């Protein structure tokens, strides 16, 4: 299940800048994973050929360090269970992948904004209150009424 901590997460294992962290810590095996290749194709519209090569339709041949911050964050969330990542590095186009990844495993991320989730058909645990919600309406209401983003 996807768990989200809204606001300021203070754990020692928190990564605030997943884009930068990825460049210096990624493992080659993460990038050989078919799921990573699919995410790069979907989000960045690029081909992840190998851990050393991405083919972008706009930029040409680029290293993986020039993947988008959103897809780098998704790859880390999918492969590194030891850290809590700042998912505000992800745009709304990363939402389907965030939900898909968390179908297979328990994932905890931090958000500093209200990401646009679907209206329903999901389960998200709000880590601040340990409440499980299953609609965007309730999620938005809870986050705002409890002032979770106001810290």
């Amino acid at each position: 299940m996807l768990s989200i901590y809204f606001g300021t997460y203070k754990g020692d294992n928190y990564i605030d800048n997943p884009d930068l962290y990825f460049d210096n810590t990624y493992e080659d095996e993460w990038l050989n994973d078919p799921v990573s290749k699919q995410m790069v194709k979907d989000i960045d519209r690029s081909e992840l050929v190998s851990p050393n090569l991405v083919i972008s339709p706009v930029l040409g041949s680029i290293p993986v360090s020039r993947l988008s911050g959103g897809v780098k964050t998704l790859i880390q969330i999918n492969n590194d269970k030891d850290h809590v990542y700042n998912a505000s590095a992800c745009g709304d186009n990363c939402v389907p992948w965030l939900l898909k990844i968390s179908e297979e495993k328990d994932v905890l991320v931090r958000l500093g904004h209200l990401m646009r989730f679907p209206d329903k058909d999901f389960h998200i645990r709000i880590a601040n209150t340990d409440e499980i919600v299953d609609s965007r309406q309730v999620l938005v209401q809870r986050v705002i009424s409890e002032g979770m983003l106001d810290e």
Partner: protein
Amino acid sequence: MTGRYEIVLYNNKICYRLDVKRNITVLRGDSASGKSELIRLLGAYNSNPSSSGITLICEKKCTVLNEENWQLFTETYSDRIFFIDEGNGFLRTTEFADTVKRSDNYYIIISREGMPNLPYSIEEIYGLREGSDSGKYRLPKRIYNEMYRLYGNVPESILDLNVVVTEDSNSGNEFFSLLFPDKCISSAGKSNITKILSQHFNERVLAIVDGAAFGPEMQKCMELSDASGGAISVYAPESFEYLILQSGILEVPKSVLEETWNYADSAKYFSWEEFFTHYLSDTTRNTVSQYSKKKLNDFYKTAGNVKSVYDVLPESLKAIVDAF
């Protein structure tokens, strides 16, 4: 710093064109829309302008700020446009907000987070999209703007509205109480608006906010509005003072309203909201129309002057007023 500036930055693969006119511009949106690439390109240009193969066209110098250099550069430089990528922790600090407040520079900030310490305008929140011509250019596109919310998206059901929430606590609230008798409450500031809206989530609510500084709260408001199925609607003119200036009650040079960027000096005014308040207070001082934000002068409550302000409201809002 005053003025409106076009920024063109390109190499042989990609080109960016931006247009900035206030002290703070925010870029956000989907991943892989080219935001961080913009920062990378500018950083590469500045590292060696003549040999980088990158071209920058802008009347002002453009510089990338990061964790290491932001304090030094903001203290040292003036009359520049600073670019800041997401992931920089200093964006959330009060020290940075204080720096922007007295700054003679403009800032282009990439962030999806609200940044409540910075009073940016809802009109200056952009996404990046690919240009429609050749795909060669990426053009800024507004995610939120006043016109979109006010003129197109006020639903029919709001006609039976239950509550009007104004961000202003004094003069602005007093004025809108004349249009919406017994329905108007104040949130006493922008940071309380979304909480009050969430308390009235199952009602039909109109929020009236000062768009010139409401950027940090706008995303939350829009999410609430969408989640409510349109029962919560937001009207976000620049500010209440702007409406008065626009109404024709007072003689105001057109350029002050239409080319505000030439008047609202970023070193003096944190936002255009502050500028319009100052302008209105200053130009009416010691006259019958003397304006005070704390208490609305009776001059602005006369039927004729209320009508003048009403006349500059968007049609969708007039319909709501007329229903009372």
